[in-house]
């Protein structure tokens, strides 16, 4: 078989084939079930649209968290790495997790250094954004990792402030 015949025979395989009747029945049944569950075309579009803005927003937030972390490390890293008291670390963790807890004390501690205060404000805002996103997608492992990372950056910020006196 030469190349021309070969190509022609392959093109001739392009035939239409009507599906069995039960395929349409199954489609209608699925459409009706989805409608009954409230999954309409406009719902799925809304979900897609929210996904469209959420992804770039998350990417920006992730970049900011990493960027701020690097900036803190470079700008305020102490010459040596003194060990952090375990009890103090637990307190810091608790205060970062709790919106009320030690927030005021931390804020006043950070307010002594305007750069640290601004960084902390940005991190706090990021935490709130991620928490809002988590309210929409509570099972998102990526969001949970980002929240944990942001909390960890805030803890480091407070530690550096303590070390700087």
């Amino acid at each position, binding site marked *: *078989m030469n190349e021309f015949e070969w*190509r022609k*025979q*392959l*093109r*001739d*395989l*392009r*035939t*239409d*084939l*009507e*599906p*069995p009747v*039960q*395929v*349409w029945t*199954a*489609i*209608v049944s*699925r*459409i009706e079930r*989805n409608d009954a569950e409230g*999954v*309409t*075309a*406009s719902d*799925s*579009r809304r979900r*897609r649209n929210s996904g469209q803005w959420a992804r770039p927003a998350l990417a920006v937030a992730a970049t900011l968290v990493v960027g701020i972390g690097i900036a803190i490390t470079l700008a305020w890293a102490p010459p040596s790495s003194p060990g952090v008291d375990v009890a103090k670390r637990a307190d810091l963790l608790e205060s970062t997790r709790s919106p009320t807890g030690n927030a005021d004390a931390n804020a006043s501690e950070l307010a002594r250094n305007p750069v640290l205060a601004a960084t902390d404000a940005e991190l706090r805002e990021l935490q709130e954004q991620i928490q809002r996103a988590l309210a929409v997608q509570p099972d998102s492992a990526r969001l949970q990792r980002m929240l944990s990372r942001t909390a960890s950056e805030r803890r480091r910020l407070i530690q550096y402030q303590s070390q700087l006196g």
Partner: protein
Amino acid sequence: MHAAAANLMGTPRLFRSAPPTAPVIATRIDSDHAEVAAAAGGDVRAFEALYLRHAARIHGVLRRLSGHDSARAEEWTQEAFVLAWQRLSSFRGESAFATWLHRLAVNVALMSLRSTRRGDAAAVAWDDDAVENAAAVVMADHGLRLDLATAVARLPPRARAILVLHDVEGWKHEEIARELGVALGTSKAQLHRARGLLRGHLERES
């Protein structure tokens, strides 16, 4: 039933794609446009008319991509039309509805092939008798050589997908690479490999 759908009920079970004339294409596009708008608003009858008009073409390509696995092709056809219904409101009319639907259906098949490839290798093992019987049904009315359809059906899923999309459906490498998420060179190399495998199958059969 919708008038257009009723007219289409007499469509033969199996027919060859003939190149439609320009007025026929224009009529189809106009008709699709009205029914797409109605279906996007929730009109199931209008969607049924679209289904009746396009199902044979969609099912045909999905049968070829599945290697004439009828159960799998039916499942993909069902999935493609349910997805189309859900996404109709996002169809902007930038391409013809038929093109949009074709691409969506091929994507359903490729996604499924990808997940099967990762998850259950046994699911792509061939039942030679089933392949030959299914291919015989498809080819019987066309006077085409059964061994070519069977040989295509026996290709590994990825090689078959690229060969079917390029040599049978007429897709460009750029489109295939985009849909498969591979580099352009990979698509070309895999087509070359698929053609080699196909020739090998045919030579062994003859």
